[in-house]
């Protein structure tokens, strides 16, 4: 009987605790975000989300680059990024299924360079330039 009472009290306390520590304050904000962003296109929803919070401009650049990639692009060389994990991971995900290499010395045949920022490295032929980024291939 005592064991059962201890069990019920323990379970009740555990339930109360998991309810108390729920992230309640974020709930209304989540609902608002969901309602506000649901009509937007998928990329815009990601742009406003947690996964791009480290650098939203970077995601804009990646989306720009992805949409402008020439047909038949076999892989993407990424230039001008800090090269830290979030930058690498997000680029790999956005450009999938194409492999992404960080600042490769030379771009393999069929690969396109995606340059983040306004600097343009020498020895490349710019395919597209939109100020905050550019697509380039090796000058051969």
């Amino acid at each position, binding site marked *: 009987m005592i064991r059962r009472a201890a*069990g019920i009290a323990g*379970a*009740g306390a555990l339930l109360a605790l998991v309810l108390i520590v*729920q992230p309640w304050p974020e709930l209304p904000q989540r609902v608002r975000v969901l309602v506000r962003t*649901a009509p937007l296109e998928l990329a815009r*929803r*990601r742009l406003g989300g947690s996964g791009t919070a480290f650098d939203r401009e970077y995601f804009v650049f990646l989306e720009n680059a992805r949409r402008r990639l020439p047909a038949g692009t076999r892989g993407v060389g990424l230039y001008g990024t800090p090269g830290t994990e979030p930058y690498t991971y997000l680029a790999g995900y956005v450009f999938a299924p194409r492999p992404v290499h960080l600042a490769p010395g030379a771009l393999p045949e069929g690969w396109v360079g995606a340059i983040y920022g306004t600097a343009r490295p020498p020895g490349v032929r710019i395919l597209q330039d939109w100020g905050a980024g550019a697509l380039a291939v090796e000058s051969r």
Partner: protein
Amino acid sequence: MSLFLLSIARVGAVAAAASAFGWAASRAACPPGREFRAERVAWAWAIAAALISGLVPACFLAGIEPGWPGLFALGALAAALGWWFRVPEPAGPSSEAGAGRTGLAVACGAVVALGIALYLVRALTEPMWSNDYVAIWGLKGKTIHAAGTLPRHLFTDPAMAYSHPEYPLGLPFFYAGVAFLTGRWDDHAMALVFPIFQVATLFGLFGWLRRRGASRTVAGLAAAILACFEPLYSAFLTGMAEVPLSLGLLLFGSSLSDAIEGDPGALRRLAFASGLITATKNEGLFFAAAGCLLALAFGSARRWRCALAALPTALVVQTAHVLWRGRVPLRDFDFSTFSVERLGEALAAAARLPGAVGWTQLVLVGVLVAAGARAPESRWMLGLCACGMAAYLLLPVFAIRGPEWLVRAALPRTTAGLAPLAAAAVGARYARR
């Protein structure tokens, strides 16, 4: 809102169609009748997830594009096998306990519904975003879907090593399968499958506890606590493998316990769950081996049958991975780095992690275990939990980036994945048998 709702409806339709096949196929695993109905929901979804996931490599091998014809063919085959090998109804009276305290049980049901609603909002707020989703599970799923094949560079390109080529492909194939069936890669609507995994887990937990003689109140309380367990059903873990694995571990643990007890169909359930967890995460193979050893050590008369059901399907799944992608070493570990200092560092970091609330929760679980009766069903599951905890605490010792890094990066979520198994183990101690 309409575009997003349409995408959600598409994912829902895939889940519903696959679950219908899963329900029909589950005849081969679950006996008919009321006693098994709730658990069968969990098994139906587990089989559905396996069908969606298996559809992709099956179609690749057949040289056709994964899609609805493939799902219908695979689902019809699974349903036919379910009918052909259906489990007979068990003899003897039902072990389900009576109504119990109805008011409390209804209140628990309300809390369960609240927990599901909360996770639904958390999971669907934005496209799946966590680091491991973007770098590993989602990346591979998106790559497989967009390439229409399993590109070699996922396993051979050193620049892609961060995506952990050594991880199993069950979840990436599942994502790719959903995308092929919905006709698009929508990583926001696809998050819907995570609350579905949660619901299936809750049905599995409630149904198993009821079948093991727990009252509606006890089973409902266990389900209510689990439904609201935010460390597992969080926005962060949405997209990662812990939530699917936690369902697999619950099914594996419950069927191991059933198999040792000699329940009809339990060996098949054990074999299926063993393959499922191995296809989901690397530690799935570890849990299958741990279950096999537990059965051998303590399974009395049925030890060999249980051990033989627990491991071979896991080994088949593992072998299929090795054949497909080649042998890939574990990326984050170096097993020559063991030292007592590193072990101390890992344990100290783990002890700091839960904080006051976490420690209170762990103490309450301890009280519940101590206050409950000694039930054999509980013992198997607690044994599996203990094996899992020991492995999760020990592995950081071998982490290349240091024990503290792995403890902080992985321990909270990996141990949270044990929650359904632990809830079943604790709940079984309050069953009336």
